[in-house]
């Protein structure tokens, strides 16, 4: 259930990555779950030495539901000056992960910095990385239930979403001429009394 605060106004694309405009930001590969490690090992051997980031996206209505996105950068392994680095190459690898068994092979042994990135995806999306040395929550508290960045997770959290929002007396939803009530009325009375130079019943002195 999308959050009540996010009503959609447009018809939406189910798989935006398939209809993306021509943007030359990276070389893109979409691969199957099983070939993840072999593909990344091959890319690493080709010179993509740095793992920049691992992200995930939840396409709720699509199957496979999740995309895990690996951003790689080809840099030389040796020390290199600005000129030698030249124009590095960006590579993006997208892997679909289904709802039923959201599991993917871990790549911590290929790049040590995948550790926190995979833990974050596990924490916020519930995708399990098999072979990760210690897969536990990283951003949310350890006893948290649910995975907040999933699209079916309410924006304000399940507990708070159930409680109604307080009805504030906004200027716009009070009809003109309606007498104020409750705290607003009390505050108004106080203000009026102060303006007239009289101390209200509960006030001490000027």
């Amino acid at each position: 259930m999308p959050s009540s605060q996010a009503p959609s106004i447009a018809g939406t694309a189910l798989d935006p990555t398939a209809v993306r405009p021509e943007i030359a930001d990276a070389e893109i590969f979409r691969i199957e779950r099983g070939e993840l490690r072999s593909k990344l090992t091959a890319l690493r051997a080709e010179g993509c030495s740095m793992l920049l980031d691992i992200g995930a996206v939840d396409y709720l209505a699509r199957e496979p539901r999740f995309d895990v996105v690996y951003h790689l950068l080809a840099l030389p392994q040796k020390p290199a000056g600005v000129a030698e680095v030249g124009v590095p190459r960006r590579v993006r690898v997208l892997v679909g992960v289904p709802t039923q068994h959201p599991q993917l092979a871990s790549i911590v042994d290929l790049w040590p910095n995948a550790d926190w990135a995979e833990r974050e995806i596990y924490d916020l999306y519930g995708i399990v990385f098999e072979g990760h040395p210690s897969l536990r929550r990283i951003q949310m508290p350890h006893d948290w239930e649910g995975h907040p960045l999933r699209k079916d997770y309410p924006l304000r959290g399940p507990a708070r979403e159930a409680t109604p929002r307080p009805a504030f007396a906004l200027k716009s939803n009070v009809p003109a001429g309606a007498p104020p009530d409750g705290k607003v009325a009390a505050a108004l009375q106080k203000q009026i009394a102060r303006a007239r130079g009289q101390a209200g019943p509960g006030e001490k002195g000027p």
Partner: protein
Amino acid sequence: MSVAPLGVTALDVVEVKGNSMTLSMGPQHPSTHGVLQVVLEVSGEIVEKAEMEIGYLHTGIEKSAENLFWTQAGTVIERMDYLSPLGNAMAYVLAVEQLLGVTDRIPERAQSIRVLLCELTRIASHCVWLGTGGIDLGAISTFFYAFDIREDILDLIEQSGGARMHPNYLRIGGINGDLPDGFLARLDALIEKFPSRMRELRALLQNNPILRDRMIDVGIVGSKAAIEWGLTGPALRASGVGYDVRKAFPYSGYQKYSFDVPIRDDGDAYARFLVRLDEMDEAMRIVSQVRKELDLPGPIMIDDPKIAQPPKETIALSMEALIHHFKIVSESFRVPPGDVYQAIESPRGELGYYIVSNGDNRPYRVRTRPPSLYNLQSLKLLAPGNLIADLVVMIGSLDPVFGEVDR
């Protein structure tokens, strides 16, 4: 043997086993520059293993951004890296402009002002790092010298965008209003004052024997390890790899300006310190080049009423302007479906945004590539074998910002 109570309350003893001890440093320890907990296994004073707990500042900014309009999301995104808010805004607006396909239509003056403010923010951010890093090492007066420069820059940012820290000045399609009167005069004053201030700072710090003793050969990362651990920014360039997004993938007209990328080969805390100091000088070099372009007036927002809000004064006069204004404010605009990765060189390294649009008026996914997260993670590699006291230097030299690490 019972454990003697420690004087420092921020270091809590968790466990004692023979000669080794497990300590918890933070999350309220002052030198962690925010809220970081480091669980240390120490043998005597030597750290054997450091495991970090993050997430104390997790505020769900990515989730919030998915529930805001394209135009509104910039406000929360600026709050990720709170020392370089304009860097965050820059990466976000560039990414959305790519999806909209309007990158080539952004006016030159807007691009120049964006570069100007990003470079000023880089100096301001490095000033905070220098000031707090100085305090970590006992050099308290550094803080005042560094924050003097930073105040001048924050004044400029306040004048241009209306707020010191999070001005939301960079907008999709350009910037929000032209620079006000008097801005350029104050900028000139800063450009003139800056070199002497930097000379003072360098005289105070660079050859200071205490600082050198504390920083040289502490927290060494080799170039291979730096690449493997995904270090970017000054931390990577201090290890001898000259990767700078401004040079490798120029954006917003960086290719027009001549500047050098400082590189050091030592890979220790002192090298990172020198790289950042040099970067401040280079940033000011870019600022003074941009300054020369700002005398000529020009448009500062894209000429597209679907994206740019009409100028305030036209709203009362033109029905069309009123309608466009109403549409943009009440339901923003729709961005063609697609995904894009856009990175910039933030003061901490490669700050990237992977943004997915499904054709709606809100971003479908905003994934940040936070440089601080990956830089901080390398502490697992740096810390073992060093003294506990050096841990403070290492954290300081990596310059993490927890608004960005935890988001």
